[in-house]
């Protein structure tokens, strides 16, 4: 399979170090006005590309302020207790600088992991059904369902979470003998995030399952494997790398989701929370809390949490991509 795709790539003109301009799609000498236009257009290209730099620069410069300044005489925030502490604000507001986001990091990762545990099997199996089993019109219907789920704004997921899931979880917890804070907490957050991740996982998995080389499947069938065995042991395994990419995207979305989470998490001020029915809080839900302060450390600390959030997302992405590269290539 690999050699096939390689051949395809080679079909095009071979690129030499000096023939780069010849391979450009449309080659023509640029007139003077063209050069001016090109410069103007490149400016727009640079502007578009510069925003990620802006984001990183401004959030970092703002976010490190609480650690390096003395916050108008309140004293600076200790970085190590910030990333390891278990209470959001240890002391009264406006005068204390004992902020900690350590438990938030654990909560955020824990919730994202649990929601993936729920959404991954559902998403992948749905993708398998759409790609390999369902008749054409059923597959098209399911694709529309997935597209619609993907286009529902997160605030609507939050609303349904509050209106529908919280009461249900509350009475479920009560029937088990737990008292939950109106149903808000880890379980509610996990369910809402799982629902939001399913379309991401399904749509990406479906594409990669469909692009599995059919000859692999035919070989498996010819060797006497049942269609179901073939689907699971050949199609799914061969599409592993794509499915993994879907999961990585989904977990990235779960880690960064804010409004829906803030509505159902319960906004705990300390942690970490591992109990399914206990109220919890994440990096994002904490950033949305108490937006009224507009100056000083209570405001800047949000940028610090923002830095932590980006580092968590980048690290998770990096580690999962490493994992993907290690186990990803089997039938390729």
């Amino acid at each position, binding site marked *: 399979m690999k050699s096939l795709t390689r051949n395809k790539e080679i079909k095009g003109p071979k690129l030499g170090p000096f023939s780069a301009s010849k391979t450009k799609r449309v080659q023509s000498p640029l007139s003077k006005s063209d050069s001016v236009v090109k410069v103007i257009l490149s400016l727009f290209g640079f502007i578009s590309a510069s925003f990620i730099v802006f984001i990183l620069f*401004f959030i970092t410069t703002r976010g490190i302020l609480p650690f390096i300044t003395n916050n108008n005489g309140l004293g600076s925030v200790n970085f190590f207790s910030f990333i390891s502490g278990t209470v959001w604000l240890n002391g009264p507001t406006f005068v204390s600088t004992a902020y900690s986001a350590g438990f938030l990091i654990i909560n955020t990762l824990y919730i994202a992991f649990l929601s993936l545990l729920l959404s991954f099997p559902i998403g992948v199996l749905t993708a398998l059904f759409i790609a390999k089993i369902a008749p054409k019109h059923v597959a098209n219907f399911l694709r529309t369902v997935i597209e619609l789920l993907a286009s529902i704004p997160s605030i609507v997921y939050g609303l349904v979470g509050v209106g529908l899931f919280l009461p249900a979880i509350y009475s479920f917890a009560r029937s088990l003998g737990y008292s939950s804070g109106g149903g808000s907490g880890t379980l509610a957050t996990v369910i809402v995030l799982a629902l939001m991740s399913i379309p991401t996982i399904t749509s990406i998995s479906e594409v990669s399952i469909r692009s599995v080389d059919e000859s692999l499947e035919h070989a498996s069938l010819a060797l006497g494997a049942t269609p179901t065995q073939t689907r699971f042991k050949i199609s799914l395994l061969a599409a592993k790398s794509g499915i993994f990419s879907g999961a990585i995207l989904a977990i990235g979305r779960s880690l960064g989701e804010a409004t829906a989470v803030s509505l159902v998490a319960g906004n705990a001020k300390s942690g970490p929370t591992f109990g399914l029915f206990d109220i919890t809080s994440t990096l994002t839900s904490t950033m949305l809390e108490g937006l009224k302060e507009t100056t000083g450390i209570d405001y800047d600390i*949000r940028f610090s949490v923002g830095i932590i959030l980006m580092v968590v997302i980048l690290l998770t992405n990096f580690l999962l991509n490493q994992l993907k590269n290690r186990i990803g290539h089997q039938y390729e």
Partner: protein
Amino acid sequence: MNKIKTKDTIVNVFVGLSSIITIVALAIIFGYVFTQGKDLISFDLITKDYHARNYVAVIENDTNQTFEMPSFDDEQVYVSSRYGIALIQSQDLAGDSVIKVAYIDENSPFTTMINQDPSKAQISLEEDAVVSRITYVNHPSSLTNKGAQMMINDLNDPEREIFEVMFATTGGGIRGSIITTLYLILLTLAVALPIGVLSAIYFNEFAKKTKLTKVLRNFVETLTGVPSIIYGLLGISVFVPLTMRFTPASGSNLIAGALTLGVILLPTIIRTTEESLKTVSDDHRFASLALGANKTQTTFKVVLPQALPGILTATFLGIGRIIGESAALIFVLGAAIKDQVRILEPSTSLAVHIWSMMTDEPANIALSSSIALIILLIVLVLNIIIKLIASMWLKKGQV
């Protein structure tokens, strides 16, 4: 062999079950939003103000005629035929006991009152308005806490002459948030479309395949993975101060919100436009160049018009994103619901309106669901439009 069969069956059941779960999830979300939100959907919802307004008014011509009143089944409704008005004991959204107007005759003295604010405008009591107090000349006032029956009894008392009426319009409309959302859509697209489309043209038509181009592309792609709450931080640290410097705005404002949304949309617009630029056949480019057009003319007069479906798709995708975006806007615009929308002041979009009400105590789920229903309908329509564009485009490609 049988063992394999049972195993296969079990596995297949799980596959089917997963698909059913996704369908049920969608059905539950739409079903919940529809059942909770449909009751409040009305023309009033989109034209009325959100905040209740209080008025103090005096009656202009206190007539002593008798009005013919319809009969009411509800036991909580009390009728005054002297003033042509029916009041009902009711509850407001917060669950407090209030007296509302259940019916008002079109010739009732309450329809021609004079507002006691400096404008002295003529004002009318309308159905559903909350009457909080009626004061009389030389008699004690009738108040909310004494109930609708008492208020009607006082009104029907021929000895009493009305001095002032205090009442409040109901509010609960979303006109302000709709206007804000429309402003945001217009402003954002005005900023993001030109930058996005021109960037896409640069990357696809003009840029050489150098390392630098690759890095720039990667930078743009990275924006896709940035969570929207981080864009909110960008908005308050860059765009809000920027707009405060160059406009009279004194704090968060819609322009800063639109700029933030513009950055959020950029990667989508660039990618979608580029994809459609790529589908334009090279033959057309060569033909145009061979006819003596220069690269600029070729790009803007031959290539770009053919990429129009892609730009349209990007526009509609963008509108969907703007309508659904909440986290970034909460940061940049705040969550204070406004009835009078000004571009240089903060206000809420529809999605933020929901968030604002859901974080209130108590949460207003009914009105939130109505707004969510509106958002879902718009998103549905946008999806259909995008599909139509795609299918029309495909057809055109086949010819």
